[in-house]
């Protein structure tokens, strides 16, 4: 253990103790602080870090205290949202089953983390649907949208993702699966994925992505590994993507309906877009993509400049 680790652990121990109302040993705490000026900074960092995460979960007091009981709940407490979603995840094996599978869906603009019982983590993008089979905790089917898989690797029992009628088998892996109509694109950032091992097998290595559509040739291209799953960080990158696709991706990640006018629907777009500025100002898309944007009811229509 390095000195820094030691200090970090001590800071955690003191923060745990001082947070209790029964704590009395201020003399001992002072002595520890006096031993090294860095101790106070470590203690502050621990307290601030933990509080930040605790507060991220607590409902804002204004909504708690002053909303009449009959008013519709505009925004459920984040903590409850977490509890509900964690309960769902934890309850995979016991409850919430319909038929032979558990279906998890996300609304547009929503992102959801799912911990599978085998230790695999799935981050489900907005407007997506993931199906998990009751008797098999080493496979998942992406029905809609996009998901990033961080798989707990087990070479004797590999994890399999089904999407658009294709099979992707991991070999120790972080990979992203995105559906677009009949086509599916799998991008790998770590490890190795094998597409359709029992058919037209194709290895996908870190920094590669494979696009597969029914009855068409594989298209293997390269992708910077840090771009894999970057949608989780609120960024979308397009490489010669038709504007119609860009519009549907924006809809899925922001929860705001975008539609490309027929005149520009097939126009190719390349570039990287941050989602959050668009969420707060949908019209900003115009400058980003060099198009015009107009509002039509609930929709934002992307049209020629």
């Amino acid at each position, binding site marked *: 253990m390095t000195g820094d680790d030691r200090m970090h652990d001590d800071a955690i121990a003191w923060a745990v103790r001082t947070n209790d*109302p029964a704590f009395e040993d201020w003399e001992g705490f002072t002595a520890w602080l006096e031993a090294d000026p860095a101790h106070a900074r470590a203690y502050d960092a621990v307290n601030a870090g933990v509080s930040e995460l605790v507060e991220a979960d607590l409902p804002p007091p204004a909504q708690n205290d002053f909303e009449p009981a009959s008013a519709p709940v505009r925004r459920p407490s984040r903590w409850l949202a977490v509890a509900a979603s964690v309960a769902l995840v934890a309850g995979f094996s016991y409850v919430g089953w319909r038929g032979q599978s558990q279906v998890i869906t996300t609304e547009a603009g929503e992102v959801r983390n799912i*911990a599978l019982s085998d230790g695999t983590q799935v981050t489900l993008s907005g407007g997506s649907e993931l199906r998990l089979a009751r008797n098999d905790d080493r496979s998942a089917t992406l029905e809609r949208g996009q998901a990033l898989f961080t798989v707990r690797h087990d070479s004797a029992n590999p994890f399999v993702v089904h999407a658009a009628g294709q099979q992707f088998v991991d070999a120790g892996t972080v990979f992203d699966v995105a559906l677009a109509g009949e086509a599916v694109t799998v991008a790998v950032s770590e490890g190795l994925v094998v597409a359709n091992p029992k058919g037209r097998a194709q290895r996908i290595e870190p920094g590669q992505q494979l696009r597969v559509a029914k009855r068409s040739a594989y298209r293997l291209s390269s992708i910077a590994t840090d771009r894999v799953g970057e949608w989780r960080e609120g960024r979308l990158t397009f490489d010669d993507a038709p504007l119609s696709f860009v519009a549907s991706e924006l809809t899925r990640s922001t929860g705001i309906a975008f539609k490309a006018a027929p005149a520009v629907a097939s126009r190719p777009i390349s570039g990287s877009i941050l989602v959050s500025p668009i969420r707060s100002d949908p019209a900003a898309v115009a400058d980003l993509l060099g198009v015009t944007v107009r509002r039509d009811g609930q929709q934002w229509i992307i049209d020629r400049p």
Partner: protein
Amino acid sequence: MRANPSQPPDGLEACYLANRERLLRFLRARGAGEDAEDLLQELWVRISSKPTGPIASPVSYLFRAADLAMIDRFRSTQQASKRERAWAETASGAEGVSDAPSAERIVTGRQYALLAAAALDALGPRVAAVFRRHRIDGVPQRAVAEEFGVSLSTVESDLRQAYRALLTVKERIDEA
């Protein structure tokens, strides 16, 4: 109420006066440096102007207040620098294209909470429940120990584990 200042100071004030040096030493060690005197003065004005009920352990009460003042001070400096950083990012990312989004922007609200909850739950049901009971419901550690039928040192060790896991989450988010 003390209308007459020549009256002997009440319990809390007597305690404050008797422990002033210790409190100053604490504040200095806590990182207040030369501001320790001013901080303590301000703190005392705030405490003494506010009616308080009976305080079981006045010395601890004063130290805790001093500790909380330093925690606030740290957080407000941190927030100020965060705002500056966010502004710099907004300015440089004016096109909305390129420029890595900040951690604050990426992991907001629910996502942040989900990551934290997942990290807690990964530690097992008791550790997660002990942490929530103490930090979210505000139940003192001794009472949490009784509720869960474990020793106080087990509760402390559970909390240390939970803190460590949450801080790892935060580190990961900050590095993203």
